[in-house]
């Protein structure tokens, strides 16, 4: 039996994330691994990661409301925030991608059969880079809720999907931003799959300081990625604790 001297481990923050096996979200049933995840010590492949830069973002990608010569229908909103890592450091110059349904709750996707009208001026796709302080900002319209077939009378709360890379393989994150006080939370198994203490981190805050007079409402959504510091593994802080 080989005994390895492993490199430093990093705080995994398991208490923040949904279980892969979340039966109320039926699609997890045949897709969640049943064996415990194996430890992958963070070596060179995991400490590095894709640094995708300005060549992935084009002018206007941060404004989802203008497309094909017209303006999207719906409540115009500004969404902004700061991306940090769990060690408190800002994450600069990282690619942030978003996608969402239109104001009627329909995606511009061939497989979305919800018969809300498609908006010819809304693709629901945006991109930007965070600035030197990890800040981002884009303009869009508030997405609608939509029904799905997970359970009887199932509706997804309004949400915007986010994709972030960070600066190492371990920091990759796909998440969803929700809106404050959404009445659909109580029945949504995707939102509810998140440990209760962590759910508030998925919900944006109405931000009057970002609201633009006579033009758009403002929402703030700060995002925290995995840390990159050499934090020793501390088992008493690892699972289930949450002191935020």
């Amino acid at each position: 039996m080989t005994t390895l001297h492993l490199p430093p481990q990093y705080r995994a923050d398991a208490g923040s994330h949904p279980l892969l096996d979340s039966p109320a979200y039926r699609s997890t049933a045949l897709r969640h691994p049943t064996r415990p995840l194996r430890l992958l010590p963070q070596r060179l492949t995991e400490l590095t990661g894709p640094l995708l830069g300005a060549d992935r973002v084009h002018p206007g990608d941060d404004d989802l409301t203008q497309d094909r010569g017209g303006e999207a229908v719906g409540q115009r909103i500004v969404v902004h925030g700061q991306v940090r890592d769990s060690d408190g450091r800002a994450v600069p110059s990282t690619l942030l991608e978003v996608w969402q349904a239109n104001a009627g709750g329909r995606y511009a996707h061939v497989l979305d059969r919800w018969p809300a009208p498609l908006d010819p001026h809304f693709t629901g796709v945006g991109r930007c880079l965070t600035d030197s302080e990890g800040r981002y900002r884009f303009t869009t319209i508030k997405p609608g809720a939509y029904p799905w077939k997970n359970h009887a009378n199932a509706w997804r709360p309004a949400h915007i999907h986010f994709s972030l890379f960070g600066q190492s393989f371990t920091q990759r994150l796909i998440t969803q931003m929700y809106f404050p006080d959404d009445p659909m939370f109580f029945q949504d198994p995707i939102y509810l799959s998140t440990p209760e203490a962590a759910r508030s981190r998925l919900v944006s805050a109405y931000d009057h300081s970002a609201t633009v007079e006579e033009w758009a409402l403002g929402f703030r959504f700060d995002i925290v990625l995995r840390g990159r510091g050499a934090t020793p593994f501390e088992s008493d802080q690892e699972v289930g604790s949450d002191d935020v």
Partner: protein
Amino acid sequence: MTSEPTTPSRTTHSWTTPSQTIGPFFHAALPWADGSDVDPDGDVTLTVRVLDGAGELVTDALVETWQADAGGRFDHPEGGGSSFRGFGRCPADATGTAVFRTVKPGPLPAEDGLVQSPHVDLSIFARGLLHRVVTRLYFPDEAAANATDPVLLSLGSDAGRLVATAVAGGYHLDVHLQGAAETPFFAV
């Protein structure tokens, strides 16, 4: 190994934003025209096929790859200097398969004089996956290096599930999310 200067204290620590599923409707946003071309002039094709616990093809998966160049370097400040993109992103097709054009990575140094056998890190996203799952692809023509790779050694008799099959023009790996042939997945 890392040049980060500070050790964070508990008081500065923030809890992370929870992961959520990518859902089925990411296709307008995430795939890129060149996403499959980790190296458009590469001489190796990697095909990764994703299956669920019933053996059904996961046709709404997104597969991402991250790998070193042929010399074991990454395009990253901590990666030894390389202009090789190293990153691939490809949605699964109707056969649950993502296809990448690339080069075979070189071996990588690890702690205590260990050497990591050539490998590619894989992230799998899909509807029904509330968090990505992470695994690795190893190469079947690296038997000697694979036999001493610290990650494969840690997997014992499951190590073979991460070793791709040689096919014409490249390599193929089946990723089983669940079931008797379940792929070993990693906490990172």
